[in-house]
């Protein structure tokens, strides 16, 4: 049943204008037993399947027989000053070889330091030094995995005084230097733009369209700290209206791209998730009509 996909930052054509959902445990049995016709692909956190055997891998096999897969990693720590852990790369490679995901992505962030994995995505200063080190890390990872990665723009709650360039310029240049694709998280742009006061359209315009291989949509929360509203990227609710508008602006600029609804906390019934997916799909359908798919050069 497994049909290997050519892995490039150009997404597989049949997924190009399809919206998928993040695979969550409460929905697993239904997605295996009654696959919704509209659902072409699901995304999983790669690290959740780093087990030697048992039900998790078995369930993922059943999912792979029904849907295309996207592997979204959270533990490679590409933003670290140190190169990626070869053992972790080997674990990813084992899963990639076994499941042949159509999409493969990681984050422009770090989480590992001094042998400790801190299970969050920390920001980096946007400097020439960071650009050089992170591009090297991505190259090491792509070499080990034998295929290009999509790297995701982060959401963040702080930035560093040392930064010498805006985040969008860093992401664009990183993609150029490392030869990797970009997973453009539309909610993250909105969250970080609010938290750090940059313009979302300028950000969007700085991203090289041809490098974008996937889009993410999610909900966020707001909290007040020192009298200032901070947006928190908690993936725990429906996509907010300004994020839908930014998604429409991204589609107008990029054309359709595989788009994921991420929902990791306060997980709703599958119907709600599929309804969010349908909203994203309607916009992808419109974008596909206005900007017909052209085969990658």
């Amino acid at each position, binding site marked *: 049943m497994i049909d290997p996909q050519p892995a490039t930052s150009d997404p597989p054509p049949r997924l190009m204008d399809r919206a998928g959902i993040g695979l969550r445990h409460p929905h697993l049995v239904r997605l295996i037993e009654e696959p919704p016709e509209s659902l072409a692909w699901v995304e999983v956190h790669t*690290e*959740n399947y*780093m*087990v*030697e*055997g*048992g*039900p*998790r891998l*078995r369930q993922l096999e059943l999912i792979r027989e029904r849907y295309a897969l996207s592997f979204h990693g*959270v*533990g*490679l*720590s590409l933003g*670290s*000053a*140190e190169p990626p*852990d070869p*053992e*972790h790369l080997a*674990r990813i490679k084992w899963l990639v070889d076994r499941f042949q995901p159509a999409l493969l992505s990681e984050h422009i962030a*770090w*989480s*590992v*330091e*001094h*042998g*400790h*994995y*801190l*299970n*969050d995505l*920390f920001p*980096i*200063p946007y*400097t020439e*030094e*960071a650009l050089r*080190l992170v591009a090297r890390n991505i190259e090491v990872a792509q070499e080990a995995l034998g295929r290009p990665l999509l790297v995701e723009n982060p959401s963040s*709650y*702080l*930035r*560093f*005084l*040392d930064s010498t360039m805006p985040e969008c310029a860093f992401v664009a240049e990183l993609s150029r230097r490392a030869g990797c694709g970009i997973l453009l998280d539309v909610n993250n742009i909105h969250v970080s733009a609010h938290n*750090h*006061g940059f313009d979302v359209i300028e950000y969007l315009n700085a991203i090289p369209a041809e490098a974008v291989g996937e889009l993410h949509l999610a909900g966020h929360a707001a909290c007040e*700290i*020192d*009298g*200032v509203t*901070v947006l*928190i990227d908690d993936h725990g609710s429906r996509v907010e209206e300004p994020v839908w508008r930014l998604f429409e602006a991204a589609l107008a600029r990029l054309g359709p791209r595989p788009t994921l609804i991420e929902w990791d906390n306060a997980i709703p019934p599958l119907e709600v998730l599929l309804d969010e997916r349908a909203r994203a799909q309607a916009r992808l359908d419109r974008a596909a009509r206005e900007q017909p798919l052209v085969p990658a050069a």
Partner: protein
Amino acid sequence: MSPLHELQAAFARALLDPAHTGTVTGGIVAAGIAPERRLAIYRHNVLASLRRVLEGTFPATRRLLGARAFAELAERFVLAHPPDRPQLVAYGAGFPAFLREQRPEAAEVADVAALEWAREEACHAPDAAPLAPAALQAIPVERYPALRFLPHPSLRLIHSAGPVYSRWRAALDEVPEPAPNLGPEQVLVLRPAMTVTTRPIAAADAALLEALLAGGTLAEAAAEAIAVDAAFDLEAALTVHLTGGSFVACQ
């Protein structure tokens, strides 16, 4: 160390110990919010997400300790022993020992945590086809005493000075604590196919298994079991192990 590496080392240290916050806050843009409060958002994410991982793995332990006491111990565990790899199914191996050290008066709760960890390990252990009961019938009876059994890779044996199985079961079912006069229990955890099984076994049966796991012959293991209980029924115990999938091979 490169400047980026220095920053990351200081940032990670500050997350795990607020006393070190001052070494990184100078490099963070305030923009209306104190840098230490920005850092605290990340500290909260780290602690809360890893606490939730432990809550998911140790539900009965949490019921026995109470949600608040568990959360407090879990967060102290996270700060003292953060994960050593980005593979959270492997996180929590040290938690039962941490409980034993932090709460020596509640050793039986630590035993329940050890049982929950054994279940977690069994769930993700390598798959293997159990030795079929029929396989033994093909071996001449005179060879039985010298047979050695290879345990299933998911097999775990838990010993406790108290009624660890009854306590675990009662906590999961949310029924009152088991009667205080229940004696020590041994528990066999196993995943012969896709479902983890958990069952209490007799002390003599545990002695038999332990000797087999250590590589002993069936005759040696049976002697250990009979030393615990002179009325031990070897054939019955072996039949239960073979139908339950405790072994993958014998020779």
